[in-house]
């Protein structure tokens, strides 16, 4: 609820030293159409209020009026920087609801694409985080690599952003013949790039001084707010659904889960930076073990899940992406609910934001890694 403007004006007049600044919805560093109301004492933020809803498009209600297959392209638009993962989470939920089996090869394909998507998503985050801190060059570097991942996705699905590529029960098309070599070439090319980012960002003293000790998120507060993903891991909690609640075939791969200690912006940065290397490991293992065979399981022509409900969650690049589906036995879900990590993670901003300067506020907001398509569904 947006408080009436008159109330804000009255409150401002009470204390002349304080000032209200409206940050967004059009602002370079709110990462979309987020609106923040900042109460400033000089340059120090004393209160943050988040206003969302500028991108609301009735995602869940639309879902109730579409068949199960028709929802897949809509999920692309949730977290548009990690569309593969949204597809993944949704089809997994329906498959669990119906008890469908997915062929081995399709599972491997899913993991390969999903982890590439995680790298791409973290790359965007890193680049825009650089922009938030005034480091413009890292942005271009990150986008250069992301472009290569998008090229890979294009060769697979024909799309560059909204793929709609996962299907309930498998995958629609096999990987193109050149994919294996292209993907391996990309990984070989990408691995030496990570130290390059370190040279520009991680090892830069100005950058370190900017983010260390900033926006500390206590582990207990994080759990109270149901924070998930890199933010939770940055606060020192080793919680990754790929390991703690394995889905698909994630239990077959070896990878580390980077965690932070202090829970500050620096830790969140490092968690994401290290996760990229871990994702590379997973993709390499999956490429190595990729079996031949079918890519589409046995799926009835008309998808009519049995009466019941399911909550299924995956570890998207931003955290726990959950889909709750209630089926009444018809072709359309009775209720379709998305638990989006960015929305939940954003809710902690009023808790960790106050007491910082405006410049730090921007860095903290950046470290939450929100995608407004997912915050407002």
């Amino acid at each position, binding site marked *: 609820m947006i408080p009436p403007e008159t109330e804000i004006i009255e409150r401002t007049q009470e204390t002349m030293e304080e000032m209200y600044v409206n940050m967004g919805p059009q602002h370079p*560093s709110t990462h979309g159409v987020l609106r923040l109301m900042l109460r400033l004492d000089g340059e120090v933020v004393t209160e943050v209020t988040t206003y969302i809803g500028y991108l609301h498009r009735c995602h869940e209600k639309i879902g109730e009026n579409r068949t199960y297959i028709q929802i897949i392209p809509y999920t692309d638009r949730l977290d548009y920087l990690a569309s593969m993962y949204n597809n993944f989470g949704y089809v997994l939920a329906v498959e669990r609801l119906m008890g469908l089996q997915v062929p081995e090869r399709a599972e491997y394909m899913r993991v390969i694409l999903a982890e590439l998507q995680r790298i791409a998503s973290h790359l965007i985050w890193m680049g825009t985080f*650089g922009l938030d801190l005034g480091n413009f060059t890292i942005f271009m570097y990150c986008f250069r690599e992301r472009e290569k991942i998008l090229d890979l996705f294009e060769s697979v699905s024909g799309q560059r952003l909204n793929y709609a590529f996962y299907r309930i029960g498998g995958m629609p098309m096999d990987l193109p013949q050149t994919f294996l070599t292209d993907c391996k070439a990309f990984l070989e090319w990408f691995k030496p790039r990570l130290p390059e980012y370190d040279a520009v960002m991680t090892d830069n003293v100005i950058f370190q001084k*900017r983010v260390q000790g900033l926006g500390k998120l206590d582990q207990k507060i994080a759990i109270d707010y149901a924070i998930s993903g890199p933010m939770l891991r940055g606060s020192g909690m080793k919680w990754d659904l790929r390991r703690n609640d394995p889905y698909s075939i994630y239990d077959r791969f070896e990878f580390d889960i980077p965690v932070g200690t202090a829970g500050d912006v620096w830790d969140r940065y490092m968690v994401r930076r290290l996760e990229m290397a871990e994702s590379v490991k997973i993709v390499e293992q999956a490429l190595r073990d990729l079996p031949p065979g079918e890519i589409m399981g046995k799926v009835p022509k008309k998808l009519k899940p049995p009466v019941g409900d399911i909550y299924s969650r995956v570890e998207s690049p931003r955290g726990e992406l959950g889909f709750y589906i209630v089926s009444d036995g018809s072709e359309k879900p009775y209720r379709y609910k998305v638990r989006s990590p960015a929305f939940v993670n954003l809710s902690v901003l009023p808790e960790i934001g106050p007491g910082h300067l405006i410049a730090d506020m921007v860095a903290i907001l950046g470290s939450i890694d929100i995608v407004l398509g997912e915050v407002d569904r």
Partner: protein
Amino acid sequence: MEKALERFYSVFAEWGVPSIVPQLIVMLVVVSVVILFISVSVMFMIWWERKISAHIQVRYGPMRVGGWHGWAQSIADGIKLLLKEDIIPAGADKLVFALAPMVVFAAALAAYVIIPFGPNLIVRDLNIGVLFYISISSLTVVGIIMAGWSSNNKYSVLGALRSAAQAVSYEVPLVVSVLGVIMTVGSLSMIQIVEAQKRIWFVIPQFFGFLIYLTAAIAECNRLPFDIPEAESELVAGFHVEYSGMRFAIFFLAEYANMFTVSAIATALFLGGWHGPLLPPWLWFLIKTYCIIFVMMWLRWTLARLRVDQLMNLGWKVLLPLAFLNMGITGLILVIHG
């Protein structure tokens, strides 16, 4: 040069024209030349910066306008800005809003008076040259505060206040860092300072002074990593949020003109001014100046932005003591050597 001027004046005197007329003509010519030089060099610098930033960021930058590597891009941009609608926000203080860019540009322009491009290529060799530059460059802040205040926008005010704080904090180390050179030469005149570097450039004995000057100068120009007055991720654009079209262009022009000035002053004070073998003096001066500009651009595109409090700490707690130390040691050595 001097003689030609005298002849010029005497011709007018013979005709019985009051002496103010030829003086005005000379002034007008000089100002036109300086403004022309500023415009051309700023346009070149903008294009150059876009190219440098592009190559740092694995891009090409402008490639189309004008043919060869988009050399005419800045000209096209300038014309576009000139033709734009002049918008004054409804809530703005119109007079101050209109005056602010002129104040900023006038300050930038006035500083060119004492830049010694060559032994004779200086508008006026003031005997208080360095002092003149320092005092004139402080005027920029007045314009910025006027712009921030008159825009009637909270972001502009924040940007302007930051700018004032930054300029005040960094002018002090800037002045103190220059003192080492002035003490060695014993003069404030730019020509004499450059002449004194015939044998050895002051960057060698005054190395720390040079570094401090360069850091403070970058802060004076509001460039990254010290660009917090216009930090775009926080304040959108700082003091010039509400400016567009020609007025914005003037701010832009002044910013780059300032960049050239601080680099030129650094060249004159520390890098031996026009001294150098083979090439003509003015060319040497420009080469050295553009080298410093290149370093500034290089820093801008590789570093992150400092925070406000970090900026203040650096200015007052690091740069200023170092500058004083530099000055003290220079004085000590001068006393010992007599």
